[in-house]
């Protein structure tokens, strides 16, 4: 499926170098935000919350949620801004005129979002270790969830960047859809704490399964079946990836 590996590597390198060269804007802000979340919610407020029923401290509970939340937002932001700016300046033509297949183009553009997401996610975990000991219970499962979630939202970011007509439209999906769903997906609370009706509705929120899968991988504790979480994550990753390839293939807002 990859006939031009050097081309894919070149595009991947460009995308990765782009966010690394402005690490003060792309890597450190989510880490600083995590420190604040962990201190305020985990230490200052969390110490007063009785969380013994879950078998975890409140801080231990929110760390996987924060890892997921920042993984999602950084992946989405990275590919959205990179692809939209490329469209805006029209230097996307550099890629479109190349002999990369549409599959390879998406793979190369994806690399920046995935790499940035992984760096931030691992960074949040390392920061958390300064607050609480948190051994990873299922490292391979964690790697699976990090990778699939990174693919889902990096591809989501590309779709958002293709759909957007101006900078104002760029963050609409993130503000009105993704962040509320992630917040309601159980970053800061277990589903058992919610009223029955909200808990039932939350079963239709895919973000819940992503957060829950990450939480199970780190702590061994989850609300839902881990198999269901893994299947949803894998299905969404494959679905968003091939949907993005399709958008490139038909030239959605890329070709006149």
């Amino acid at each position, binding site marked *: 499926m990859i*006939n*031009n590996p050097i*081309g894919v590597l*070149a595009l991947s390198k460009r995308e990765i170098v782009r966010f690394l060269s402005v690490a003060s804007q792309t890597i450190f802000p989510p880490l600083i935000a995590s420190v604040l979340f962990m201190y305020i919610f985990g230490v200052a407020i969390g110490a007063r919350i009785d969380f013994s029923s879950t078998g975890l401290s409140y801080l231990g509970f929110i760390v996987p949620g924060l890892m997921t939340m920042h993984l999602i937002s950084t992946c989405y932001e990275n590919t959205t801004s990179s692809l939209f700016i490329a469209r805006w*300046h029209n*230097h996307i033509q*550099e890629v479109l*005129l190349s002999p990369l297949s549409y599959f390879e183009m998406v793979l190369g553009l994806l690399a920046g979002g995935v790499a940035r997401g992984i760096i931030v996610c691992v960074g949040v975990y390392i920061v958390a270790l300064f607050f609480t000991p948190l051994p990873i219970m299922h490292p391979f499962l964690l790697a699976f969830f990090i990778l699939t979630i990174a693919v889902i939202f990096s591809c989501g970011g590309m779709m958002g960047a293709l759909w957007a007509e101006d900078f104002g439209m760029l963050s609409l999906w993130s503000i009105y859809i993704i962040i509320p769903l992630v917040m309601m997906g159980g970053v800061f609370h277990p589903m058992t704490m919610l009223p029955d009706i909200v808990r039932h509705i939350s079963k239709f929120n895919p973000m819940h399964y992503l957060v829950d899968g990450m939480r199970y991988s780190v702590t061994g504790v989850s609300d839902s079946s881990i198999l269901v979480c893994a299947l949803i994550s894998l299905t969404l990753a494959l679905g968003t990836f091939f949907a993005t390839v399709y958008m490139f293939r038909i030239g959605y807002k890329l*070709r*006149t």
Partner: protein
Amino acid sequence: MRDSERAISIKHLTKFYGKLQALDNISLEIKRGDFFAFLGPNGAGKTTTINVLTGLSNFQKGEAKAFGYNTVSEYTRTRRLIGLCAQEFNFDPFLTIHQLLVYQAGYFGIPPREASQRTDELLERFQLIEKRNVKHRALSGGMKKRLLICRALIHDPEILILDEPTAGCDLELKFLIWDHLTQLNNEGKTIFLTTHYMEEAEKLCKTIGIINHGRIVRIGNKQEVLRDKSLEAVFLEVTGQE
């Protein structure tokens, strides 16, 4: 004509932008090694034809081929054969001009060391080597024009397509670009050029096509098209302009 001798082949190409017909059943063939000028008033369909050939535009009917390869179904092959020097300065603003060309070479499957070497050779040839570590914003208009040509040539394409390469250039730069294009054509590259400058087409090209309202209204070798008239006179005659 064998496909290896037919650099560009367009058959019955029709393209609409919404309800506006940009190309109306156009057909043309350009031989390997030809220097083809594609002329026409603004909005006649020149850039649309280029965009279809390079895969930047979809179209509704017809087909376009480069050396026998279909530009839609075999796009990964045709894009290796074509280098496009666009009208606008559409460079990645975050990269130096050296990085920009090395990445561009990379997309074409050229390994980094060879890409860097080829980049320096092109920058040297187009007198940009001293600017290799600056971003394109720091270049003059003329330098950006030359950078566009460097980018189009980075993968050593068989066909070089130039969309008004000398528009807005001073005389010195125009002559410099003409020299480079003549040299590239002498080296065997097929050149497809659009321009509004009749003297440019008359001086450089072997074959001329004129498009108006999305239709090719005159095409042939230079002598056939001119028939002892000036190109400007022919152009005004076939496009109905005063």
